[in-house]
């Protein structure tokens, strides 16, 4: 490990790289699976958000591991250290999640925790594999009727034309694209535009995990063909009524500060649609990345919940 990386990581001594890593074949491509904690402990599966990677759990996962959990996370296809795919869909990500659970070698239901997109995925996983999911913890991935914060208004002809055209233009050149090379500081500054509430020390740490060092500088590992949009056929109202149908202990945590990458769901919108008996926390002065802004608090809520429901 280079001195530069050591110095950056030493600024965040509470962050900890995983104890183990392995690769899981998800049907011709491999995803990277990482774990913190004793292999014999109670497993819990962590699903990261869109454009993130398993290393974004480096602050939060060790706290669960210290409390006696085997914390398992994976890089979604095209993200982090997982293989890039030719094609990407939500449904394929769901299948990959099921493969990761399968790789744990237990048929007992396990608790699952997801942030943002990962939270939405875990909601659905509890519906499609109810016999494998013992509890759901959703971190700022609870849908609302307006959709995502940055979703285009499809009734706006000009805005929709721009979105569709720019996505197709991106695809025309995507095969030749590579992520822009920069310094660690430069990549961290750029990420701050999308993660404005996170500290520069943390964002620099993330670069040392989620980017690789090439001859001309550091570049994010995420597949350069991936990008936002088009917003597609999916509608949030498809997911909302399904939440009430989950018959599994459920913990919802949201940040109340609206952010670019967030879903913007308010407490008033979130609580009524959660499964019956759900526990719900709306964290004041906290943005979309609740587990990064307040790792100790969110870990304490999570462990307390799991101790009661498992």
């Amino acid at each position, binding site marked *: 490990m280079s001195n530069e990386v050591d110095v950056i990581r030493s600024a965040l001594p509470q962050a900890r790289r995983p104890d183990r890593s392995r690769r899981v074949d998800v*049907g011709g491509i491999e995803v990277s699976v990482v774990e913190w904690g004793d292999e014999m402990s109670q497993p819990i599966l962590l699903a990261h958000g869109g454009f993130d990677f398993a290393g974004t759990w480096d602050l939060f996962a060790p706290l669960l591991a210290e409390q006696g959990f085997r914390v398992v996370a994976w890089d979604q296809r095209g993200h982090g250290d997982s293989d890039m795919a030719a094609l990407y869909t939500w449904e394929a990500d769901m299948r990959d999640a099921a493969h990761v659970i399968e790789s744990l070698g237990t048929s007992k239901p396990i608790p699952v925790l997801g942030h943002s997109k990962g939270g939405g995925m875990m909601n659905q996983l509890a519906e*499609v594999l109810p016999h494998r999911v013992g509890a759901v913890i959703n971190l700022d991935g609870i849908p609302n009727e307006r959709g995502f914060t940055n979703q285009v208004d499809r009734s706006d002809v000009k805005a929709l034309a721009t979105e569709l055209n720019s996505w197709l233009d991106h695809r*025309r050149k*995507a095969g030749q694209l590579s992520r822009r090379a920069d310094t660690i500081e430069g990549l961290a500054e750029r990420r701050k535009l999308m993660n404005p509430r996170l500290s520069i020390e943390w964002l620099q740490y993330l670069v040392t995990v989620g980017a690789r060092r090439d001859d001309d500088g550091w570049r994010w590992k995420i597949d350069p*063909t991936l990008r936002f949009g088009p917003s*597609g056929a999916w509608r949030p109202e498809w997911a909302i009524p399904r939440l009430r149908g989950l018959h599994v202990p459920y913990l919802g945590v949201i940040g109340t500060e609206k952010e670019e990458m967030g879903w913007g769901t308010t407490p008033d919108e979130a609580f009524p649609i959660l499964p019956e008996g759900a526990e719900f926390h709306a964290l004041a002065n906290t943005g979309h990345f609740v587990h990064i802004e307040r790792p100790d608090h969110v870990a304490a809520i999570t462990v307390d919940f799991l101790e009661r429901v498992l």
Partner: protein
Amino acid sequence: MTTTFLEHVRSRLALHELRDGHGHPLLILHGLGERSPSAIPEAVQGWKGPIFALDFTGHGASTVPVGGGYTCEALMSDADAVLAKLGRVTLLGYGLGGYVGLLLFGSRPTEINGLIIMDGPGLDGGGGRPTSPSLLHVSASDLDGSAPDPWALAELASDIRPPSYAFDHVRQIEMLSNMELAVTVVSLGRPEWLTAILESPVVVESDVATALSRFALL
């Protein structure tokens, strides 16, 4: 028939020129699980311009990727790669190809000279609204790299096609294409998305010959 290959994202797409001609090209988009026709379909014999047909990703002579992940939007971008090569075309799509053609027309409304929607496999997809979600499964022994990709068959027969989504695209055509009659529906099949777009004044029910003669003038 001559075949050229287009490098597009991570696919190598087979574009077949079925016949040369004068005027702008007709691009044929096949249905789900199909491949491009090797001869000119009877219905389009009257077209005077060049006639091309594209094999979508996972179909015909195009790349069969691993791991699935098919969407109609990805196939739309396959067809858009042909626009990048050929310029303005008239589209004729069978089944799935008709729906993909609509998405592309709505996304590139000034670059397409009309769309004809024919019956064919994959016209309905997974219907207009979601049913109970499930994890799709394809047997590993079926994944031998040959076309059509079993993942394409599974995923594109179950993707949800809300009428409002199709209508969003036809509205883009209405507002931006400068065509009075832009889409001709020939199919007998009437999935929800197709019924929805028939509400638009730029969509008409007619026959192939009438549509081709209209679009040839553009």
